[in-house]
Each structure stands twice: as C-alpha cells, then as structure tokens.
C-alpha cells in the first residue's frame, strides 16, 4: 500500500463549499491558492466538481437551509473522502452558536476529519492543516 498512500497524500484535490459563513473564511481559504501561498506546491488543487474531489473544505456554521445541500455534496464525493472544517464557525458554530437558523458546526451534519479554528484562520493555517492531513493519509 506504500505507493497508494503516497499518491493519495501527494494529490489532495479540494472542493470549497461555503455553508453560510460571512465570506471571511472563503477569502482566506482561496488565498492559500494564490501565488503567495500556492498550495499547488503540495499537489493540492481546487476542483470544481464534487466527483473529482478528495477533500471537502467547508466554511460557515451550516445554516438549516443549506444542510441538505451539504449532505448531498458530501455524498456525491467518491471514497476515500475527507472533510476539513475551516474557521471557528465550521468547527463549533462560532459567533452564530445557538442561533435558531444554524446547525452549529459541520460535525453536526457530516463527519469531520480536520478542524482548523480561527475567525478567519490564516492561509498558513490551511496549509498546516493540509500538511497534517497528508501526514495522516500517509500514515494509513
């Protein structure tokens, strides 16, 4: 399984999904793919279709309205798949915690593999998280 886990770790394609955040996290997440941070160095690509993705990068506290779409997108992804909760909202609900219209975090809806807290987290934090994910995939 050496080659397989190597290939999986070196080629994590990310689908970005905003589940009702304030857009702060999205700007920071996309910044990780700009020339300054360039996540493509590690083989990470931003892909447009859930069918192509390995990791789902969710930002925002998951509003009640978007919950079904999030589940559907998650189910459209082929195995093995990972979910990255990006931002405090996505981890716990953040400033929207206790609100009547949100579910309060991605892990209330779909299983999460990696939490990246911060409001919003820096792009470096995303790169750190991806490195952690790569290490975990590599480890088996």
């Amino acid at each position, binding site marked *: 399984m050496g080659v397989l886990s190597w*290939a999986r770790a070196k*080629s994590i394609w990310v689908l970005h999904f905003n589940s009702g955040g304030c857009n702060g996290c999205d700007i920071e997440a996309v910044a990780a793919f700009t*020339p300054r941070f*360039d996540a*493509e160095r590690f083989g990470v690509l931003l892909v*447009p279709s859930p*069918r192509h993705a390995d990791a789902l990068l969710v930002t925002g506290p998951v509003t009640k309205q978007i919950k079904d779409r999030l589940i559907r997108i998650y189910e459209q992804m*082929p*195995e093995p798949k990972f979910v990255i909760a990006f931002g405090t909202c996505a981890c716990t609900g953040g400033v929207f915690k206790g609100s009547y219209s949100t579910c309060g975090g991605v892990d209330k809806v779909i299983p999460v593999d990696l939490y990246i807290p911060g409001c919003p987290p820096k792009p470096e934090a995303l790169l750190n998280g991806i490195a952690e994910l790569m290490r975990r995939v590599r480890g088996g």
Partner: protein
Amino acid sequence: MWWIPGALAFFIVFAFFIEWVDRRFVARLQDRYGPIYTGTGGVLQPWADFIKLLSKEDITPAASDKVLFRLAPLVLPIFPIVGLCLTPILGKPIIGFDGDLIVAFFLMSVYTIMIFIAGYGSGNSFGIVGGTRAALQMLGYEVPFALAMIGPAILAGTLSISEIAYSQSNIWYAIPLALGFAVFMVCSLAEVDVVPFDIPHAKQEIVAGWETEYSGRKLALIHLAENLEMVFISALATALFLGGGYGPFSPPIPPAVWFIIKTLIVAIVISNLRAIFARFKIITLVEWSWKYLLPLAIVQLLVLELFFELGVIPWP
C-alpha cells in the same frame, strides 16, 4: 517490431512529463511554483494524481447512460495514441502510410465527438452543456484547421505525415507557411481545450463541463487522454511545420531527440498561451473562426499557389 510496446509506454510517460512541464511553466508565469514536492522537482505529480484517481471509488450516476458513460473514457485515450503512432516522433512512425494525414485529422474529429458523447452520456445537465459546447466549438475551428494542414501536404506533395516531416531538410514549412502555422496553432488550442478555448469545461461557468460526473478510474483515463492529445497536437505541429527530426548537428544527434525537443517547445508555447489569455465566449470562437481564421487559411493556400506560379518554390 520489438520497440512498439516501449514506444507506447514512452508516449504515456512523455504525456505525464508534458503535464508537469505545463503546470510548472504556467505556475512560474503566474509567479507561483507549481508542484515541486512530489518526486524530484515535482515530476511525479501527474503520476500521483493518476494513481490516486485509479484507486478512488468509481461512481456511476443513476441518471447516466450506462453504456456511453462506461465506454467513452475507455475509448478516449485510444485516438491520441493511434495518432501518435502516425507521427515520426521516434525517428520513424510506428504505422505510416500515404494518406495518414487524413487519418490523423479524422482521429482528432472523433476525439471531439467522443467528448460530446462523454458529456451527453453522463446525464448531468452541466455535462450535456459541456458536450454540446465541444461539438459546437468543433464546427468553428475544424475547417480552418483542416485547411491549415493542407498547406504542408501541398508543399511536400504527399499526404503522409512522416514524408512531410522528412521533406523539410532544406526549409521548415513554418517559414513559407507562416500564416497557416498561426491558424494551426490557434485551432490546436481549441482542439486540446486549453484556456482561451477551454469552453467545454469552463470551470467558472459550468462546474467541470463534460467531465463533471466522471470520477475515479474514468477521470484518470480522461486526464491521460487530454495529456496524450496535447502531445499528439504538439507532435503534429512539429512534423508538419517545424521540420520534424531535422536540426543542427542532425547526423550525430538522432532525429528523435530533435523531434522530442521541438514537441516540448510547442507544448510550452501552448501552455504559455494558456497562461496569458482569458476564456473566449463560445459565440466569439465560432464567429472568429469563420470570419478570420478561415479566410486566413484560404489566403495562405492562395499565396502558396502564387509562389508555385511565380516559381519562387518549385512544384513538388
């Protein structure tokens, strides 16, 4: 005959190598680095992507046409591979005969039609839009593309790709046929679906276009086919316009080396164009191909005829 499996393996290795060169080159133009940590300098990145995709779950959507959906990605890489067998990329072609230029052109058309079938068979609305766009785009660029390829055939007096490549020992056909070469390059951008004309899988508009529903193994084969198509078009440009295997110090240096270097340069030019342009609208592409590319290709043929009549170039 013993070298044929090696040649096929070489095509695939070279296709992945070109994908890496393309990604690195575009990244450098955009002030990024591109993949650098996978293997030495990132050369193994396309291999990692390919192996990962092969190992992923393969989803067949309920709404898809099962036969087309399964068949299209399997058939897709065959066309560029057969096309590469016609070009003298390794010094001599694997299968070369008089008239293979027409076969090469046919293979390119069928490749695009297969893309349409792949999009159509996926049963996804974005897939169908992408596939339709691919077919519509073909209506635009195909005629000028064919006319541009006729120029070298007239100059060499043969329809065999390798004979055309061998007949350029004195002059590269890109010099007398500069206009035709330009038309060829513009149309080849549309043929390989790179950025100015990546209308069939416009990321920002229609998710991933005709590839939207493909996952796992099928996507791996589709990416392989796209890379091979890039190599095929670059090799065709080299054989028809850039002197094939001829180059300085050609007797000590084998023609295959020059051919591969030139193919690489054409691929780099294509990825350069990919980095500096924004996407055209489908209507602009079709309109411009009929308004500008087609007349330019015809003018090129007329100029060629004039050269013959005036005796600037002897009749083949």
